[in-house]
């Protein structure tokens, strides 16, 4: 199976080319089949690779395809690295990707851009696979920018809408800010280690010892890239706007896969981070700040997708928190469970929006549980999973992260629990407002309400099952289970293991779990009281809010602040460059030289009086002068 690994990215690429070239001529059914089929093929190979890796002795394969770039000692092969980490990501990407493709067949069935949508989606999977399969940083960067491109294309999928286009552009540009950091990081890696292949870099880094400044700078530059792609403070504002794309895109790209690229990158470079405690602290602090910041915004949002978007930002913050305290396995574990339940939630939201005929405002929903029961149950499962309710998958991954954070720093743990409480609260707020109470939409909408077709509900059910059982691969020792995931990933994080050990007694762990569960139940109860028992509905747009509520509702005015601090000054600066410096100063000097020559000529030509006697006089005088200077 390992030998077929090149087929994994090639299949989606073929899908993209076929659908892209002939999509218009093929029927929608065929396009959907090809689009999902290639992903299924990739999934099948990924499963094969996974088992081969799990059962085999060799844990790392490098497959070189061709030599891509070479300049002097810089030689970059186009090659793939298959190890437990990339294999796990392959499974997540192709697995969740396949389900979302199937879902899209139903969801997009009435859209005129059906084939274009599948072409882009396949292209996205191709780049995402490159990202995780590359055996050096530049291939990762190829995938990294490639998924950014697909994200741009898919956010702006309905390209007639200016607001959507703006969101797409914002996503691409903001990602590019991070990409620049990543690119500089890659260059610094090359300058430092003379190679950008993972293998060479990590081997050398191991011997460099902890606290090396260069490594810290590398780690921070790479992290700038991760901030952009994984929507961390201060580069997160594109992700909520990215919800402009069709809902399957939000599920696949902006929840399950692409935004976790940053976590993959840091997990991949774990040695570099382990060697740099400063960088680790930065990662942890940015992570927890993002987690709390986004969670507070999530409390006051009324758009079903926006709530989920902020929840994604917040959950990504948790993953970075885990990375920052050295819990690499925990972070990857959470990537996996998050991919399941967040994809489930987004697809569920999609199903709700589908039923509501495009309405996304939860103030206009309510009581949907009796109309769309499959969506309702799966959505509830997703909500419980993200809240971290035992025994759903979120419980295990969140518990692992929080336990590690507790061992590392109690204050961080406290903030972590606070964030978890908020998460639970706004998720249940969303749930109660959407599915409970009375229907608050128009009559027409109520009439239109219907459960989605099977192509949409089946992926929901599969994801719901995964959200329930997904956590079982990582049962902590304290619950007498086996942490299969940790075993599987151990070769990747081996070199960093000296920092991974956390010393918590079983008793402490029980207490931590207990606290988390109590907090969760309290938050659920609180949400229940407000939004189900009292039937409170968030106020309308035009009503005046209390200052704090207003602050949160307006997302701390971060977009406006960026607009004032960056966009406007940049435009002003550019105008100044253009009008003042370029047109007047630089070009002024150039034209000035021209004018000066003209002026001089104009002055000197006055000597040509036309009086021949004068000419002769000057000639004679000149001859005399020349003779004098030559003779004496």
């Amino acid at each position, binding site marked *: 199976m390992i030998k077929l690994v090149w087929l994994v990215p090639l299949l989606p690429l073929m899908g993209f080319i076929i659908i892209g070239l002939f999509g218009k001529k093929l029927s929608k059914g065929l396009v959907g089949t090809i689009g999902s089929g290639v992903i299924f093929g990739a999934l099948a190979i990924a499963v094969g690779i996974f088992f081969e890796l799990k059962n085999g002795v060799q844990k790392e394969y490098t497959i070189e395809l*061709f*030599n*891509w*770039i*070479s*300049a*002097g*000692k*810089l030689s970059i092969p186009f090659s793939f690295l298959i190890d437990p980490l990339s294999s796990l990501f392959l499974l997540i990407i192709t697995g969740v990707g396949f389900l979302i493709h199937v879902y899209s067949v139903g969801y997009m069935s009435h859209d005129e851009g059906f084939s274009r949508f599948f072409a882009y989606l396949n292209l996205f999977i191709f780049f995402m696979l490159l990202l995780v399969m590359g055996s050096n940083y*530049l291939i990762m*960067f*190829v995938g*990294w*920018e*490639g998924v950014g*491109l697909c994200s*741009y294309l898919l956010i*702006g999928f309905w*390209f*007639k*809408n*200016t607001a959507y*286009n*703006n969101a797409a*552009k914002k996503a*691409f*540009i903001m990602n*590019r*800010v991070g*990409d*620049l950091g990543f*690119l*500089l990081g890659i*260059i*610094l890696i*090359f*300058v430092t280690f003379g190679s950008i292949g993972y293998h060479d870099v990590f081997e050398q880094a191991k011997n460099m010892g902890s606290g090396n400044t260069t490594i810290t700078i590398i780690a921070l530059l790479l992290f700038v890239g991760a901030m952009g792609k994984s929507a961390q403070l201060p580069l997160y504002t594109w992700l909520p706007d990215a919800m402009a794309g069709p809902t399957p895109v939000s599920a696949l790209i902006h929840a399950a896969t692409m935004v976790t690229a940053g976590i993959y990158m840091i997990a991949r470079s774990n040695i570099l981070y382990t060697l740099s405690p400063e960088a680790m602290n930065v990662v942890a602090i940015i992570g927890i700040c993002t987690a709390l910041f986004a969670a507070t915004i999530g409390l006051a949002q009324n758009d079903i997708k926006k709530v989920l978007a902020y929840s994604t930002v917040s959950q990504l913050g948790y993953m970075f928190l885990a990375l920052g305290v050295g819990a690499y396995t925990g972070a990857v574990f959470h990537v996996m469970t998050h991919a399941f339940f967040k994809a489930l939630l987004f697809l569920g939201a999609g199903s709700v929006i589908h039923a509501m005929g495009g309405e996304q405002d939860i103030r206009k929903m309510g009581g949907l549980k009796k109309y769309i029961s499959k969506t309702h149950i799966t959505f509830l499962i997703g909500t419980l999973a993200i809240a971290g309710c035992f025994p759903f998958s979120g419980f295990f991954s969140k518990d692992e992260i929080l336990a590690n954070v507790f061992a590392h720093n109690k204050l961080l743990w406290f903030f972590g629990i606070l964030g978890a409480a908020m998460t639970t609260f706004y998720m249940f707020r969303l749930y109660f407002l959407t599915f409970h109470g009375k229907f608050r939409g128009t009559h027409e909408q109520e009439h239109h309400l219907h459960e989605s077709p099977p192509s949409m509900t089946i992926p929901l059910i599969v994801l719901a099952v995964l959200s329930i059982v997904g956590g079982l691969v990582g049962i902590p020792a304290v619950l007498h289970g086996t942490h299969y995931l940790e075993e599987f990933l151990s070769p990747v994080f081996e070199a960093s293991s000296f920092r991974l050990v956390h010393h918590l007694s079983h008793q402490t762990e029980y207490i931590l779990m207990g606290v988390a569960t109590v907090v969760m139940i309290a938050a659920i109860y609180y949400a229940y009281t407000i939004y189900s028992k009292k039937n409170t509905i968030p106020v309308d747009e035009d009503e005046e809010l209390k200052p704090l509520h207003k602050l949160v509702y307006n997302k701390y005015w971060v977009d406006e602040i960026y607009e004032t601090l960056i966009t406007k000054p*940049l*435009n002003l*600066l*550019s*105008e100044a*460059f*253009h009008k003042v*410096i*370029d047109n007047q100063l*630089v*070009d002024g*000097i*150039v034209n000035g030289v*021209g004018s000066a020559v003209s002026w001089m000529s104009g002055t000197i030509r006055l000597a040509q009086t036309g009086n021949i006697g004068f000419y002769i006089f000057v000639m004679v005088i000149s001859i005399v002068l020349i003779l004098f200077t030559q003779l004496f």
Partner: protein
Amino acid sequence: MITLLLIFFPLVAGLLLLFVKGPQVKTLALGAAILEFAIAVFALGHFHQDATTQFEWNYAWVQSLGITFHVGIDGISMLLVLLTTFLVPVIILTSFKTEHKNPSAFYSLILIMQMALVGVFVSLDGFLFYVFWELALIPIYFICLLWGGEDRARITFKFFVYTLAGSLFMLGGLIYLYLHTPGGHSFDIAALYSAGQSLDVVHQGYVFWAMFIAFAVKMPVFPFHTWQPDTYTTAPTQGTMMLSGIMLKMGTFGVIRWLLPLAPLGVEKYANLAIGLAVFGVVYASCIAIVQKDFKRLIAYSSIAHVGLIAAGILSMNTQGVQGAMIQMLSHGVNVVGLFFIVDLIQKRTNTREIAALGGIRNVNPQFAFLFLIVLLGSVALPLTNGFVGEFLLLNGVYQFNPWMAGFAGLSVILGAVYMLRSYQSIMLGETNGITSSFAPLEKSEKAVLLIICAAIIVFGVFPKPLTDIVSPAVDQLLAGLRVALGH
């Protein structure tokens, strides 16, 4: 012999074309250009991929003054000859749907210009280089003057005088070195090299500035660039393509062949300042591009940004920088021709180039939108397009010179996305308006040009190796020579 053929075939073809009247002029010009490309490909087939100079031809031209007609092709020349001979047929093809008055003169001038350009790239004699260098200016002057747009007389005059004045510095530098050649005056490249390298650092500094100003004007590098936006905007599309696609490379090529080895110590001494100017120009031009309203002018400024990075990479004098510059010269040539063609297509159909006035073309012509997107991605250096390989190597090269400068130059990665995506969105996306709703579909020749360009963008983004293989031995040898001269 083949080098002579490469130089003189376009000249002969161009002169013969003057006598052809009627509609077949375009086809004949295209045929001649394709034949020239075939000759170049034939030369490539017989080219040994090593550091030697091949297909040499050395004829004592003015023996008493040490001037020879010495031409030859090494890896660096080969790549640029290929670029020139590849782009000229493409450029001629772009004009198939445009009716120029007096077409035989127009195409004749393009071919004569091609002769001068090839001559510049293969010259191995300082005097000959200068002759070709100035010769290239004459046809483009007439192209811009006779077929240009608004206010062309003033703008073309400025362009001509500016570049001519710049070249004068180069002539001064060359003559200065000529007077210092060991054992009898000679303009031969090897003699000039040893003359330059035997000077002390102060005098090499003078030589550096003399040559650098000429090349900086041609590229152009900030602050010698103000002729460029006007000229690019006013020139007829094909003239702009010749200027930006090929002629600009004369400047960057000049730095590689006629500056680095002539005054290595001078380059080293003033590298901070020169690279600083180039890198500042990158960000400066990107910023200005953001606020342009005319799409053609926007691309003109974006070209300044790209070239600034190339110049910085070359002057940083390391393998990645110079190699990246070579790759980027090629990519930039292809991409910028594509972009200017897109401008031309839009202008022909809508009679405007104003970004804000357009919109929604994608609704009417999705195919064009897709091809435009690919060219755009090449231009913003997305990985797996040709723009990325060069840009990565260039940033890498500049980083080795000075990390801060690389970081600053890297801002163009962001700004490039800003101005390209903004204009793409404004031109192609959204709803159609009165101007764009009747956007005519692409003609066959237009589609062919865009497809060729897009294919080049993707193929050389994925497999840049054939290109690097041609050029890397020559670059390595050049840098090894420089290291010796610098005493590293």
